[in-house]
């Protein structure tokens, strides 16, 4: 089996080269006005019984030369039929004025008027800087038509309008990479949708070109994560702090009242009890004031300020990182590549 495949490969390649040789020979015969031989060769090429592989482009070329040969032989109507067959397969097909006669060109023009087709030239791999460069698209209508060219993200119903209006023949369009909202197109798959309505035949046609865009920029820095609870100081005293303050005041008052009976000599019957009452009263009041104050103000101002400072420092660093990232994004480039269809 493998051997058979290996043997078939060169045969297929040879077939392709034979078709190309036949087309070369036909072109030479056409230049020599030897259209009889030319017709024989071209009919072999387009015949379903052709032993050679015929590509799409080769078939279009064969139809083009067939049309021209028939026009030379005086069969303009038949020539036009083949020209239309070529145009239907590839609207971009054209006759070079220096290689074809005015009669052939006239017949080809007639074929274009009778055939309505839209085309988009395939896009190549490219990388552009959207600040200074543009993406080029070439669209075409075979004859006068109202044309609408729109760029859509794959799967979207609406998109960015690139052109709307009258058109006849090929048209170059440039796209700066911006979508309708003024933002740079993000990475993803896009479609260039061309729709048109013939002014001559009153027929409509459409064609789509799919491609991908990949934004290319320097690696972005991560911003600092939000401060974790363990990275912040407690901003409030625990709920029991008010009671603790009251107990402190009462404790001081108790200590003052205990000094005379405990530390003073009992024989003196003194110890400045009256004076101790004074300080005990003051301490009790201080404890009560502390209790009330802490019930209403549990915050720790120093810690609140320290946390605010940490948050501000983090915000400053993140703002700098965001600014650096914005600069990098501003310098991003778009990598364009052809794609097949809406998605994989």
């Amino acid at each position: 089996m493998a051997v058979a495949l290996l043997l078939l490969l060169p045969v297929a390649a040879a077939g392709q080269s034979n078709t190309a040789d036949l087309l070369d020979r036909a072109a030479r015969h056409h230049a020599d006005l030897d259209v009889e031989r030319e017709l024989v060769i071209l009919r072999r090429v387009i015949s379903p019984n052709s032993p050679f592989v015929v590509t799409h482009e080769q078939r279009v070329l064969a139809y083009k030369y067939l049309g021209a040969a028939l026009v030379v032989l005086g069969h303009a109507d038949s020539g036009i039929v083949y020209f239309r067959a070529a145009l239907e397969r590839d609207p971009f097909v054209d006759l070079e004025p220096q290689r074809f006669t005015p009669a052939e060109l006239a017949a080809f023009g007639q074929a274009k008027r009778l055939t309505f087709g839209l085309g988009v030239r395939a896009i190549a791999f490219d990388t552009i800087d959207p600040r200074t460069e543009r993406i080029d698209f070439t669209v075409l209508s075979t004859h006068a038509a109202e044309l609408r060219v729109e760029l859509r993200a794959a799967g979207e119903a609406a998109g960015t309008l690139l052109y709307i209006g009258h058109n006849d023949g090929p048209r170059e369009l440039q796209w700066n990479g911006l979508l309708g909202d003024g933002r740079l197109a993000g990475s993803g798959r896009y479609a260039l949708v061309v729709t048109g309505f013939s002014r001559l035949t009153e027929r409509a046609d459409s064609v789509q070109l799919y491609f991908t865009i990949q934004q290319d920029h320097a690696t972005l820095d991560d911003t600092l994560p939000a401060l974790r609870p363990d990275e912040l100081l407690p901003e409030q005293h625990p709920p029991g702090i008010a009671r603790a303050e009251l107990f402190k005041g009462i404790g001081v008052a108790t200590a003052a009242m205990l000094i005379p009976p405990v530390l003073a000599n009992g024989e003196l019957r003194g110890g400045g009890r009256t004076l101790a009452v004074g300080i005990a009263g003051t301490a009790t009041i201080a404890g009560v004031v502390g209790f009330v104050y802490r019930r209403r103000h549990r915050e720790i101002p120093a810690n609140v300020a320290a946390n605010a400072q940490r948050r501000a420092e983090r915000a400053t660093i993140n703002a700098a990182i965001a600014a650096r990232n914005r600069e990098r994004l501003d310098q991003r480039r778009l990598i364009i590549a052809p794609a097949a269809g809406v998605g994989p």
Partner: protein
Amino acid sequence: MTRRLAAALCGTLALLAVPVRLAGQFSFHGRGTIGRAEHRVLDAGASVVSSGTLLGGALGFVGGEWEVWAEVMGGRLAAADSPAMEDREIAEVALLASVRVRPWLRLRGGPWVRSYFNTLARQRWTMLRFGAEARVPLAVESVRVVLRGDWMPIANVSGLQRPEIAFAAGVGLEWRRKRIGVSTLYTLERYDFPANAGGRRLEEFAALQIRTSVRWR
């Protein structure tokens, strides 16, 4: 004795000056004091209670963890229960140094001289005291509880033997901002002298002081 005390004073001052200078950052403080004092004496079965108002002032140097304060205080003590007794004057000078060993705890010590006198006699007390002072914050950050205890290992009293027991205790509240501070302090000093000829002299000095301090550098 006076020479020895003077030498001890100079030595203490010299030792205390070194850390203050080394600390680099230091500040000067002033303090005014007004207080009510009560002095009780029991000797040979007779008890005398006198009381009066005291006025005083102090200058302080604060450098790093160290503080050095020079204090003076004086006033008149009247014996309300013994009108026949002549009023006495009291005057005292103290030099106290302290070092912060914990954010809330200071160790302190220094010499202290006190005189009771009237037109008839003068009694001088010369002491060296060591102690500790705790300052615990209350609800408002600038208000603190003050707890104080001192021991006087050397206490010489003219005309009397050295007391067997000599200590002081105090409790109070302090409110201090950057430049000014107000505090109130209750203190009790107890002196128990050894028995002599069947009698025993006991003395006690209690005071309630209100103090205002200012920092000017």
